[in-house]
């Protein structure tokens, strides 16, 4: 599958060689062809998209520049607020809700000339690793529709992989951009915590959540980061200043760059064919002039335990707002208390209920110190162990996901089995660092493998330099296994 990238679309639209309308219709055509089979979207906003594309074309015709993403179709994860357009988080509890404002990232995409084509499916409230926990049914992997696309941003990853849009936005709390990017064979970026505004991102784990792009190419992903990133006065955790100037450094190469392979992410639980691709990536970086060595980051082995206490704790607090009073669905009952219980019981799916109860438990009197307090201390260990590694290395590499895409229904019976998908991605969120997944060939089953490039906070420039070299190496390899 090969589709036009965002940069070349924007260049042709800005130059007047193609109209945004033509570009849009081509993508809507592909959606019409395969969306029934893939189910990447909760909603395709064809009419709004046509109006937006027409406005871009009018701007070009009038001699104005619509922006760096002129006429580029973009798919938006359905946990990002879109003014007047249903935003469901793939949950029944938000049925009928039309947000009264746009998320900052949605505004910035529009201001850059992008054309929003729809809202993509996700695991309910972004809780899951397969997009099977959606109230609207699962999304399927475009490479093999019997497999999951990963999650929680599975719809956004599948939309890019299927050619429905060259770029999309997702959110990443424990790997929800990087893991589906890996499974769908596209680029996915989780920027440093605080670099991209969370205003208008429906909150899951507020100290972990970060918005980022999916794209076919590293250069497209870099451009989207610069467009949507940078300070936002509407998010109190937003870092002052612009997103690091990653697009200027994509051709810098990796000569002299120090790259560490994370030992703890190469052994137990990692499929041998996936580990082999990471070794091949390491060799490619070394061949391009980087120094590559193994490095131990001991605390990452405790990431899963810490995450499944911290994230549910924050979720239980954040999701208390769904009470049938201010937005979404309500099940009527005689008293407010009964109405809230009836609404939440009918509105949330099992995984969301599980995490709310887990979070409520670990925050409750008598258990707080033992569970939540301990997990917070492990976050400090994680930060310290990464800091030590980053004294010797500029970036680290690992698998993004322990396996290639698994079959739909394979891991839904046991929550813990599903959670193990995130062992390589979770540590970055706990530390608040940056990481991205770059497609790097395929596994023994012929399905895409993603290599994860990890970087310290604000280490996006070396991270993208390494990613660009890996992308070129994978291309040169020509899909060799």
């Amino acid at each position, binding site marked *: 599958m090969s589709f036009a990238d965002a940069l070349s679309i924007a260049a042709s639209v800005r130059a007047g060689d193609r109209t945004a309308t033509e570009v849009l219709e081509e993508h809507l055509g592909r959606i019409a062809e395969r969306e029934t089979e893939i189910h990447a979207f909760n909603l395709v906003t064809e009419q709004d998209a046509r109006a937006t594309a027409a406005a871009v074309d009018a701007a070009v015709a009038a001699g104005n520049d619509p922006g760096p993403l002129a006429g580029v179709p973009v798919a938006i994860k359905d946990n990002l607020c879109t003014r007047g357009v249903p935003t469901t988080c793939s949950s029944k509890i938000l049925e009928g809700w039309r947000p009264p404002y746009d998320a900052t990232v949605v505004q910035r995409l529009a201001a850059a000339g992008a054309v929003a084509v729809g809202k993509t499916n996700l695991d309910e409230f972004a809780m899951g690793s397969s997009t099977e926990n959606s109230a609207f049914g699962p999304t399927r992997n475009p490479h093999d529709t019997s497999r999951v696309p990963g999650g929680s941003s599975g719809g956004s990853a599948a939309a890019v992989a299927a050619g429905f849009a060259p770029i999309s936005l997702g959110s990443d709390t424990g790997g929800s951009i990087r893991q589906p990017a890996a499974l769908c064979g596209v680029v996915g970026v989780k920027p440093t915590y605080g670099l991209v505004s969370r205003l208008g991102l429906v909150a899951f784990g507020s100290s972990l959540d970060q918005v980022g792009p999916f794209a076919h190419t590293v250069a497209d992903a870099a451009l989207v980061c610069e467009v949507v990133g940078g300070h936002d006065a509407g998010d109190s955790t937003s870092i002052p200043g612009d997103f690091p100037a990653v697009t200027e450094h994509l051709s810098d190469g990796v000569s002299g760059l120090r790259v560490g392979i994370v030992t703890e992410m190469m052994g137990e639980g990692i499929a041998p064919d996936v580990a082999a691709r990471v070794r091949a990536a390491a060799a490619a970086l070394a061949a391009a002039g980087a120094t590559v060595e193994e490095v131990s980051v001991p605390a990452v082995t405790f990431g899963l335990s810490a995450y499944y206490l911290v994230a549910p704790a924050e979720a239980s607090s954040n999701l208390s707002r769904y009470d049938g009073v201010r937005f979404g669905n309500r099940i009527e009952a005689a008293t407010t208390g009964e109405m809230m219980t009836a609404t939440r019981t009918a509105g949330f799916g099992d995984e969301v209920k599980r995490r709310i109860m887990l979070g409520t438990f670990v925050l*409750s009197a008598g258990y707080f110190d033992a569970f939540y307090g301990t997990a917070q201390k492990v976050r400090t260990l994680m930060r310290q162990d990464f800091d030590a590694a980053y004294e010797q290395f500029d970036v680290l590499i690992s698998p993004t996901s322990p396996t290639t895409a698994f079959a739909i229904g394979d891991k839904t019976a046991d929550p813990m089995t599903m959670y193990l998908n995130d062992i390589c991605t979770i540590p970055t969120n706990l530390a608040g660092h940056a990481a991205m997944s770059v497609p790097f060939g395929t596994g023994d089953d012929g399905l895409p493998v993603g290599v994860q490039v990890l970087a310290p906070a604000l280490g996006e420039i070396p991270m993208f330099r390494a990613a660009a070299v890996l992308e070129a190496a994978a291309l040169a390899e020509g899909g060799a296994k």
Partner: protein
Amino acid sequence: MAERITTEDVTKVANLARLALTPDELETFTGQLAEILEHADDIAALDLAGVEPMARPLPLVNVFRADEPGTPLDRDEVLACAPVSEDGQFRVPPVLGEAP
């Protein structure tokens, strides 16, 4: 090592979280929560004396903005998102006392 979570614990937290569980759900969720909490035995066994807890990736700083009037969300538009509203306010069933 914490004691295994019981159906009584889960009943209590479900109530706190305003979720109603069927007897079957109570059994299933209790087993699943126990498995997840047991996974955390690995971090419970760590010696974390002297390690500071980390609540957020960035240091907490006061964020100030210029005291300039802006345009807030439109009240009617916000109320239109609610299941029921009346006279410019959210409407809920009785909170105190018996149901009518």
